[in-house]
């Protein structure tokens, strides 16, 4: 810990350091908050349901009862997908920011989610893949290809992968992928019709099969991701120092990028491309708990699902009885946060 304290940037914006007890208490509170959000996510919507109905839906399920069916078939899977996808995006964002030492790294802005989405569309439209189990693999490949390409393009030139270059490379790759996607769907009206719903990230209409197919990958990915905290702390000191401390930097990087590709691929397969949430939440976590990546990862794990589910609930309430997809709500909230970050944070900080 002493080493980390010294690594904190000297000067105006010295990050806050709280005691381990305070941080643990905060984490417990956060888990409580997640439980509350889950409760609202299950009860609120076009059809409000009470606590007793939820209880009955699981203990004494009556298939004839519409409210109970809504809970079992729609609300619960939706909430669970929100939790795991949110956790995946949050941890990916935190890892990307750490491994690229770039405060603006985000799976959405770097085009990783767009890569997964484009490959899924390709799999469905061209190869006729129907089952979720197959298209999850397309998502992984897409996310992996996008990660490598974007990081590769951004790393050329003297300064390596600066925030601007990463963001531009992400935008460029996203643009190419969307061209290819529209070339595929332009000639096929039903494909176009499917794509326009798919390309807005949403938690609605994704059911248990999607969850079961993506869950194993997400769980493994999340566990590996949580274990990267120490290595990220090392990288935060700079590559040379990390090597001097005995870290195998290249191996660490590869493991992290693979983890990010798996997490983003699975999350995108589950709920479509969602931008900004992986950017903003790790920053919130960093504001709360300082520069130690072990805490940042732990906080991101619980805080991102809270934000994602809250956005989903907002989307359901604002235009009730219709709904605003969670990708739209996050986009509308996330963009101002991004602008604030660019304007007011010292970007050389990581």
């Amino acid at each position, binding site marked *: 810990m002493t080493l980390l304290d010294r690594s904190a940037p000297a000067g105006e914006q010295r990050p806050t350091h709280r005691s381990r007890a305070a941080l643990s208490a905060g984490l417990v509170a956060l888990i409580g908050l997640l439980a509350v959000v889950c409760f609202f996510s299950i009860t609120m919507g076009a059809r409000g349901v009470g606590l007793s109905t939820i209880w009955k839906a699981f203990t004494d399920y009556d298939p004839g009862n519409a409210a109970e069916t809504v809970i079992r078939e729609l609300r619960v899977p939706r909430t669970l997908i929100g939790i795991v996808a949110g956790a995946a995006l949050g941890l990916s964002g935190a890892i990307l920011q750490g491994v690229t030492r770039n405060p*603006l790294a985000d799976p*959405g*802005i770097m085009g990783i989610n767009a890569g997964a989405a484009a490959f899924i569309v390709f799999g469905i439209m061209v190869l006729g893949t129907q089952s979720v189990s197959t298209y999850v693999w397309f998502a992984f490949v897409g996310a992996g290809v996008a990660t490598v*390409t974007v990081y*590769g*393009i951004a790393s*050329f*030139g*003297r*300064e390596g992968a*600066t*925030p*601007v*270059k990463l*963001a*531009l*490379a*992400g*935008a*460029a*790759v996203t*643009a*190419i992928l*969307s*061209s*290819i996607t*529209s*070339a595929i*769907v*332009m*000639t096929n*009206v039903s494909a*176009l*019709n499917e794509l*326009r*719903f798919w*390309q*807005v990230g949403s938690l609605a209409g994704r059911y248990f099969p999607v969850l079961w197919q993506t869950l194993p990958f997400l769980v493994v990915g999340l566990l590996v991701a949580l274990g990267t905290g120490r290595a990220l702390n090392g990288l935060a000191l700079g590559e040379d120092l990390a090597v001097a401390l005995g870290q195998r930097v290249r191996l660490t990087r590869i493991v992290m990028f693979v983890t990010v590709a798996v997490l983003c691929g699975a999350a995108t397969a589950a709920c479509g491309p969602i*931008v*900004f949430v992986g950017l903003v939440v790790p920053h919130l976590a960093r504001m709360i708990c300082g520069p130690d990546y072990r805490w940042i990862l732990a906080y991101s794990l619980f805080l991102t699902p809270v934000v994602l589910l809250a956005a989903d609930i907002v989307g359901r309430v604002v235009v009730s009885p219709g709904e*605003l*997809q969670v*990708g*739209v709500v*996050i*986009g*509308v909230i*996330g*963009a101002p946060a*991004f*602008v604030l970050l*660019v*304007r007011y944070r010292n970007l050389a900080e990581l």
Partner: protein
Amino acid sequence: METPTSLDVPTVRGGRRQRRRRATVVTAALLLVVACLFVLTMMLGSYYVSPIDVITSVLGLRDDPTTDFIVRDLRLPTAASGVAVGLALGLSGVIFQKLLGNPLASPDFVGVSSGASLFAVSSIVLFDASSSAVSGSALLGALLTALLIYVLAWRDGITGYRFVLIGIGVSNFMVAIIGYIVSRAELYEARQAMTWLAGTIGQSGAGELRTLLVAVVVVIPLALVLERPLRTLELGDDTATALGSRVERNRLVLIALSIVLIGFSTAVAGPILFVALIAGPIAQRLTGSAGGILTAGLVGAVIVLGADLVAQQALPTPLPTGVVTGIIGAPYLIWLLATVNREGRGG
């Protein structure tokens, strides 16, 4: 200018003359290629017209109602908008890249096109607008978005770096809302909106086209006048200031120029990706260091006309121009990756 003491004066002069000659030859060759593609665009289609007929019909030297109708009314607008859009995109892109010192800085990605797209898609889906109203709102969208980005990025002056990042943030915001609007639309409107979003040069009416041509004709001389300050700005802010350049004002004017061009071209053809990104570097490769921004504009015109010929004639089903240029972008990025570019102030 004092003559350099350590170098042989005739050698330096000779080298400069050689570079200039190369630039002139390349520019002339590009003009010729643009002219050929322009004529070729009007020749091909479901009914073949010979090159002589095309030229005489466009110049009004002959009176043949059938050919005149096909050439002047059906194909000339597409060909002319191809040239104008290509010029506008190439110029706009090269100005951006030189200002920001980054080969990836293209106005496509910094939110201006997505602002135009948001306004155009809203007018198609929400107001069922006619094609000229769609163009008008796209132009309005481009200008308002640029203004928004400029205001958001302003903090004791503008740095290109902040401008690009905030532009990308704003762009993602616009894309989220476009996605929502398209997912809420009726299927036929969604289809129309997505076709517009893919970008194609054959979709505008004569009125919008005339506006674009006027804009290009006004802006090109202005851009050429500003080429010298642009070259000074390329040396970096400190050097430019030391050389007596009014950095902030020149940069503002050049950004505005670039945005007007991209706004008009998006209004006419929709967002045609990557032309602004690749025209500048290609022109630079062709002409060497002496190349001007006009060369980049001509390269842009060649790319757009060529891409449209491929999209309309070479493929089994005709596709929007923007899809083809977008796919051209992929190998370019890979090339960028492979050559591990040494240039660029980057940051």
